[in-house]
């Protein structure tokens, strides 16, 4: 919902630019110098109530607690797995945070290196130590399908206003699509349809800064996959 406020002005700022000099409070990605609020990343200026901040256009993913993310197992310990979730830090997944009862040293029987998992970020502490869990509904080991990696700053575009973009993608391509907050997206469906869905997602990432994206994506998919009339109702996926 913060995005929508920004859409009106679309003022692109770079680090050091003055966002406000009239006494507004600094929001995300902003700092105060000599009473003036300045931007600390490149992005779009965003005013929300009495704060002014920046919505980043680029940048790495920094997990926050509650995020649902995809991860790839990169290392195995006797009582934990190390998961790459696209953050600057590795995320350890402890055996007590998986839905199975795992004996000490038996970790590799459940998840091995290269496995893709859907996780939830439990907490990120001050020193950026991340803990993740797999104990929640929907969290699981992923089998089949394909993983697409896009910039996490474009995730909100893939989802769209109250999920309009993602539900359109699902309906039109008949794929199962799950979006991780870290910008990793899992697509599962028939080969050709999944390919089209991935191309559409990549197109969204590339053209995220332009308006009218939903219509153009719709056009793009219609060209690739002719839609049946009766198949195109606004039901859930």
């Amino acid at each position, binding site marked *: 919902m913060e995005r929508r406020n920004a859409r009106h002005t679309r003022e692109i700022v770079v680090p050091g630019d003055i966002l406000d000099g009239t006494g507004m409070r600094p929001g995300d990605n902003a700092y105060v110098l000599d009473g003036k609020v300045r931007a600390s990343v*490149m992005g779009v200026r965003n005013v929300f109530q009495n704060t002014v901040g920046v919505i980043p256009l680029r940048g790495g993913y920094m997990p926050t607690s509650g995020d649902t993310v995809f991860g790839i197992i990169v290392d195995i310990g006797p009582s934990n797995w190390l998961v790459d979730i696209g953050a600057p830090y590795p995320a350890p997944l402890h055996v007590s945070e998986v839905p199975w009862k795992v004996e000490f040293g038996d970790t590799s029987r459940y998840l091995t290196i290269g496995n893709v998992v859907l996780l939830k970020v439990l907490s990120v502490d001050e020193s950026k130590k991340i803990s993740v869990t797999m104990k929640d509904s929907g969290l699981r080991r992923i089998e089949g399908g394909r993983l697409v990696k896009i910039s996490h700053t474009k995730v909100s575009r893939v989802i769209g206003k109250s999920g309009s973009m993602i539900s359109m993608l699902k309906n039109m391509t008949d794929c199962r699509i799950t979006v991780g907050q870290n910008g990793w997206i899992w697509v599962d469906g028939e080969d050709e349809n999944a390919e089209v869905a991935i191309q559409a997602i990549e197109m969204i990432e590339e053209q995220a800064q332009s308006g009218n994206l939903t219509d153009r994506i719709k056009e793009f998919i219609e060209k690739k996959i002719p839609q049946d009339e009766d198949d195109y109702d606004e039901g859930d996926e």
Partner: protein
Amino acid sequence: MSGHTDMVLVDENGLRIDGRTAEQHRPFKIEAGVLNNADGSAYVEIGKNKVLAAVYGPRECHPRHLQDPTKAIVQCKYNMQSFSVSDRKRPGPDRRSIEISKIISEALEKVVLTELYPRASIDVYIEILQANAGTRCAGLTAASVALADAGIPMRDIVPALACGKADGHVLLDLNKEEDNYGQADVPIAIIPSTDEIVLLQMDGNMTREEFDRGIKMAVAGCHELHELQKDALKRRYSKKAEEESE
């Protein structure tokens, strides 16, 4: 500074060998986001200098012992291509490039909000494709644009420019001949919002008055360069939007 020449570096009209006045800098050209595989990148031309910078990170810091539990470190690699100078440069790090890497890292650490990424590393690679005096300034200018392009939180974008002295005149942005046969070369880098100096070196001799005048000129030049840096970053997105609306 090393050699002597009969060449007239500054003529009786106050014009330099490339036709500039003492307070004129060489033409600048900055482009952001030129590389696809790096997290951020920039290409800078200052006169005949051609510099490419790429940024990765923040990412896990390797080797481990360099990690700082309180903040991220900026690791910079300045490298000159063997074809960047007229005599082939022997490839690989040497004393000069190690020094430049260090001072550029330190200058960038002052602007990057390193405390947001404890234990991480931000890696900056600067490649000099063509050199014509002032590559460390061009390199730092490119590196800070590349950092901003990578979306790394920072206080400001740093521009860097040299001033110096040749034929007894205080000059802005020395070219190769003025650097080689002149009396002093002073590269500086500033934080434009506060005019703090984050890099300052001096090779050669100048009087205090000449130095002060040189710094003043260089700071003014840096502000000009800073406008172009900002413009390069903003252009990247405005151009994209235009292309798509067609």
